[in-house]
């Protein structure tokens, strides 16, 4: 099986879906001539032309709104945000237009579109450009929120997202684009809303998503050296959330850690903990512990940024805590 980058996996997904369906087009800052700020749209302008690969001004709210309108009249836009940090400017179109349209038109207009771009912290991009938005977006009824952590998931989920008849927020990561993984040559789709057990173990469960999948896997590798075997449940989609996958794992291991990139209060982990306490109460051997970003604006200083981010040592410590070790 070919081993390719997350970036190339997304590029393949876009190209294949644009070949498959000429209603699909991509629009955003630097997506065409510059080939994408992170080169995700590389080669698409040459292949599909400027009607389907559209550079925009720096006007997130404007081109997000154009996308919603295009979707309402039958196209299938993919709106690239250079980062989700910039997409805050477009939140009104996501929250009030895309998410509400089907409901407020009594089912007359659906909005089949994808908002996509890198999410969360990279390295030293400071407080305004290091934010993880999945919990903000997952809060909104009417959209789906997809957070792939591997090249395989990125491709299969982006293809499903483009084909979905609902607005999808698709959260990638600067630090993920260069990661490599196996991606089959033949076409495949990954259903939205289905988690993936990335690693199997009996001792404890780590529920996670997105970029943190890699952290969870590294933590699980380290713990395996001590004979501790971890179930890593990669949610892949945080809305809708695959509660059954969480339950199956926690009922097996009796111990759960939730690892997420964002802040603690009202985070993705808070919702996971709620499902766990409600559905797995009789199966818990320890309180569920969350690992998340420190409750501060992301510091610019390298050492402080490192402390603020969820990481492998914090995850290992949390697993040991739910296992009553140390």
């Amino acid at each position, binding site marked *: 099986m070919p081993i390719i980058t997350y970036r190339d996996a997304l590029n393949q997904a876009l190209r294949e879906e644009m070949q498959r369906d000429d209603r699909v087009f991509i629009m955003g800052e630097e997506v065409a001539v510059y080939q994408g700020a992170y080169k995700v749209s590389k080669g698409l302008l040459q292949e599909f032309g400027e009607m389907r690969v559209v550079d925009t001004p720096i006007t997130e709210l404007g081109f997000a709104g154009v996308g919603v309108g295009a979707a309402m009249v039958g196209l299938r836009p993919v709106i690239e945000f250079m980062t989700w940090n910039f997409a805050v400017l477009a939140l009104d179109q996501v929250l009030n237009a895309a998410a509400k349209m089907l409901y407020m038109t009594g089912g007359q207009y659906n909005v089949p579109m994808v908002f996509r771009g890198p999410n969360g912290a990279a390295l030293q991009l400071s407080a305004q450009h290091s934010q993880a938005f999945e919990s903000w977006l997952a809060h909104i009824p009417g959209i789906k929120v997809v957070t792939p952590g591997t090249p395989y998931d990125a491709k299969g989920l982006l293809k499903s997202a483009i084909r979905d008849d609902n607005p999808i927020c698709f959260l990638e990561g600067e630090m993920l684009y260069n990661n490599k993984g196996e991606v089959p040559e033949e076409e495949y789709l990954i259903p939205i809303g289905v988690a993936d057990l990335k690693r199997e173990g009996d001792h404890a469960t780590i529920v996670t998503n997105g970029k943190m999948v890699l952290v969870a896997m590294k933590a699980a590798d380290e713990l395996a050296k001590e004979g501790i075997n971890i179930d890593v449940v990669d949610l892949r989609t945080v809305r809708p959330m695959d509660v059954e996958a969480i339950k199956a794992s926690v009922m097996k291991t009796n111990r759960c850690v939730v690892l997420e990139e964002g802040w603690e209060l009202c985070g993705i982990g808070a919702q996971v903990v709620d499902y766990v306490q409600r559905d797995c109460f009789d*199966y818990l051997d320890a309180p569920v512990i969350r690992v998340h970003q420190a409750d501060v604006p992301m510091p610019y200083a390298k050492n402080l940024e490192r402390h603020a981010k969820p990481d492998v040592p914090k995850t290992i410590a949390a697993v040991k805590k739910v296992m*009553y070790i140390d």
Partner: protein
Amino acid sequence: MATKIFMEALSPTMEEGRLVKWLKNEGDAVKSGDPLAEVETDKAIMELVARGDGILRKRLVNEGDAKPVGTLVGVIGTADENIDELVGGAAAAATASAAPAPAAASAKSPEPATEPPTEKPAVPQSPSPSAPQPPASGSAARSSPVARKMAADNGLNLSGVSGSGPAGRIIKRDIEAAMAAGQKSGPQTTDHRPPSTREGDYQDLPLTQIRKTIAKRLSESIGPIPTFYLTAEFDLENAAQLRMAMADLGPEFKVSFNDIILKAVATALSQHPEVNAHWLGDKIRQHNRVHLGMAVATDDGLIVPVIFDADTKRMSQISAEAKELAGLARSRKLKSEQYTGSTFSVSNLGMFGIEQFTAIINPPETAILAIGAVEDKVVIEKGEQVVRKRLRVTMSCDHRAIDGAVGAKFLVTLRRLIENPLMLVY
């Protein structure tokens, strides 16, 4: 709100307790966890502790009186709280004799009677309106949800399980250990816990037909445990030299014959799981870990504290533990987990000058070794009469599980170790 004090089940088999001594007077302030009274159980004298904060308002049982588990023996409350109704109900509670569910009774405990009327009657005045009631077992131990579920699914009484989690929380591994030990009940404490059970600690052997027939026929002959006895005499000259050599190194290195014998027995058992076994009726459980019981005579009778994982312990550890356990036994301070779980037992009457005796098997164990006195005896060695230190041991074996030759092989191993104590460091 008042907290009732109940006679609690302080040992796994306790049905009633004798209140030996009150440790608090009426009017004394008490905090949750404070010892209130000494209670004599069927096994030991234990402390009954407070399950709530306040003032010991009433003692309902006189020192020296025995009361069934679940009986109301006192009340803790605030200084001005009206407890008449609680105290009035004491007679009824007492007649409910063995009802082991004090929590059920306390569910009906009345509301505090002396709340002054306020604008917001629903808000309790006291900062800690009610101390948590103990669960039905009379224990305040916490437990994780899965531990409770596993216990319920397996008919395990949580009060018999020691918690190894924070604040003594009973967690999954404690239940697994308790189930593996076949323990259905027993008091909970935190220290001196028997080691948790791991996979591979024992193997269960289904009974073969011949084993079933042997068990049935021999039980009819001598029942219910068809015991046979194997006596052997060991030469202890080398052991005596070892003792002297060690004593020469300084008083801290002194070991007794008993320490050497316990170490040798533990080592031999690790090589003979066939006698380190439990008879479980439908199967024989051979233990791969050696939890060595040692019979201790006390003024109240015999008790058998356990040296857990004795085969993995150095002689100095065994010596120290044996001494400590014997001391605890004589002062009746043993906790139940310190005298349950043995896989094989040893009884030593050598200090009474008993040359040889037969000990009675402590079921479900399948054998016990009776140790006699070390005595100078004339023996024939290479045709010459010589005086040697000799020891007689008699192993009582449950014939349902152990055949004569099996027991004898164990004694062969034991002889090699005791007669050549250097083997113990091999």
